[in-house]
């Protein structure tokens, strides 16, 4: 305790490098995005304070509402898909012993690659002369233009992200499953509970914290999808995969309307903040 009295200066010095990085590259841009959304900042760096003009424009921007809808629809497809796949694979892995490490490794493999990598490969898979249509042709079925049909593009993109990312959630859920005492399941089995009953009354309730954690991080991930869209669709066809983040990118770096792009950024900020606060409220204690 005595030595702690000398700590203030050294403590500050040790925090200093990261603190400086934070103030400049996290805190300042976070405040900056709110400030810029109130200006007409453009590529030349000139700007005027325009009050809530950008927000008024946003509310009347059909593009914005469409992007918000696309983002929500994508999340509504991706989140259940990835949670189901990771839960199913975690359950499967948890019920085998022989070769478990091998299967776990294979299923986790895509996670270490980049979304650009995944996007490139899957662009070919969905292509006319690609893997899926090749299989369809073998079955004498008509080819499907996955990337050119508005109703198919979001499920197709969700599948790519799921392939690339489910290994992570699978591992979280697998750890959750391993933490369930075997004696509970054993006792239920002795009492004559079937597999489904055991799953519903023991596994699922005890897995809830891990499931909720996975649900939240995957929801946040679904709102942040960008790389695969950039590589595979460019927001198309007819803006059917034009998400909020794609909007920020295009407003900022195609039209160079930084002020208006920042306004789109504020919406993304608000959406993710709400999800994070829900997370904090429910699983703030202990997970991670």
């Amino acid at each position, binding site marked *: 305790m005595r030595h702690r009295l000398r700590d203030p200066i050294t403590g500050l010095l040790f925090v200093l490098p990261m603190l400086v990085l934070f103030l400049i590259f996290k805190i300042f841009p976070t405040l900056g995005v709110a400030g810029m959304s109130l200006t007409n900042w453009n590529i030349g760096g000139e700007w005027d304070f325009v009050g809530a003009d950008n927000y008024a424009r946003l509310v009347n921007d059909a593009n914005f509402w469409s992007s918000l809808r696309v983002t929500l629809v994508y999340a509504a497809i991706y989140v259940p898909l990835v949670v189901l796949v990771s839960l199913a694979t975690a359950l499967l892995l948890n019920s085998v012993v022989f070769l478990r490490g091998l299967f776990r490794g294979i299923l986790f493999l895509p996670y270490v690659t980049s979304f650009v990598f995944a996007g490139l490969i899957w662009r070919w898979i969905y292509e006319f002369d690609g893997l899926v249509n090749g299989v369809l042709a073998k079955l004498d079925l008509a080819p499907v233009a996955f990337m050119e049909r508005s109703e198919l593009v979001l499920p197709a993109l969700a599948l790519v992200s799921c392939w690339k990312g489910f290994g992570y959630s699978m591992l*979280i859920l697998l750890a959750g499953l391993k933490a369930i005492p075997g004696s509970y399941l054993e006792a239920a089995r002795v009492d004559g509970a079937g597999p489904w009953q055991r799953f519903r009354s023991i596994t699922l309730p005890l897995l809830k914290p891990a499931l909720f954690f996975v649900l939240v991080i995957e929801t946040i991930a679904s709102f942040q999808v960008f790389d695969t869209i950039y590589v595979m669709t460019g927001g198309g066809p007819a803006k059917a995969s034009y998400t909020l983040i794609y909007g920020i990118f295009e407003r900022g770096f195609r039209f160079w309307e930084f002020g208006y792009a920042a306004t789109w950024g504020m919406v993304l900020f608000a959406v993710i903040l709400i999800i994070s606060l829900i997370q904090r409220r429910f699983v703030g204690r202990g997970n991670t």
Partner: protein
Amino acid sequence: MTLTATRPAAARSDRRAAPPRRRGGKWALYTLLSVISLLTLGPFIAMIIVALSPRGEPTVPAQWPDSLTFDNITQVLNASGFAEWTLNSFVYSAVSVVVILLTSSMAGYAFAKKRFPGRDTMLWTFLATMMVPFQATLIPLYVLVSDFGGADTFWGLIVPTLANSQAVFLMRQFILGLPDELFDAAKVDGASELRVYWTIVVPLTKPILATLGVFVFLWHWNDFLWPLVISQSDATRTLTVGLTVLKTEELQWATLMSSAAVSAVPCLLVFFLLQRYLVNSIAMTGLK
């Protein structure tokens, strides 16, 4: 002796009696796991076959290629910019790993073991920035960095990505668990603060530093959006961005698949060398 021999045998037969059709169940599990594993590996296998197929000749999915060649790979390796992008990705990832490990372990040490004014406020602020999505601050961050001449420079690419709250938190949590006596004893012996950091903190946090290092490497190697907006020429362009530029110049799938395959080699190496390690650390640390 007979007693100890019969007891487990009886228990075992009990257990076997409780769940019927166990054997068939195991087969079903393994079949299902194998199918899912094949689906997960499928894109990788198809990518490798296409990458090794002679350009312009029929290949999967229409038919198996008649011969395999490394021509596409060598062509990609010699393609203009490719070597430069790869080197840039290495610089981006390696510098980030070193600096983030250093600054986050220093900050983590101070937050865990020092008392200084504003400590809790700082910690709380670091935590709060985790809820701010990077994409929301993209516009102000870009304006800030390019105003200081950071567009298309290495410092502009790397430095803004070094502010990493996940890393600070992980280090703080880990160092919090180290006994205070260690640090007090070192100070009683007259060790300087830097010496304490270098001879106690760093060696004792090696396992967690290694885990963090692997993740930081993967995050940066696979990073896309920030390099996409801040790099404008081959001088600072990273591999992920390069792949999307290559895309517009080359329409041959064999070339694209080869470049994707080459780009993923470091990640796959990390995976094959450190798989067990990565897999175990995800559930433990919650890093994503």
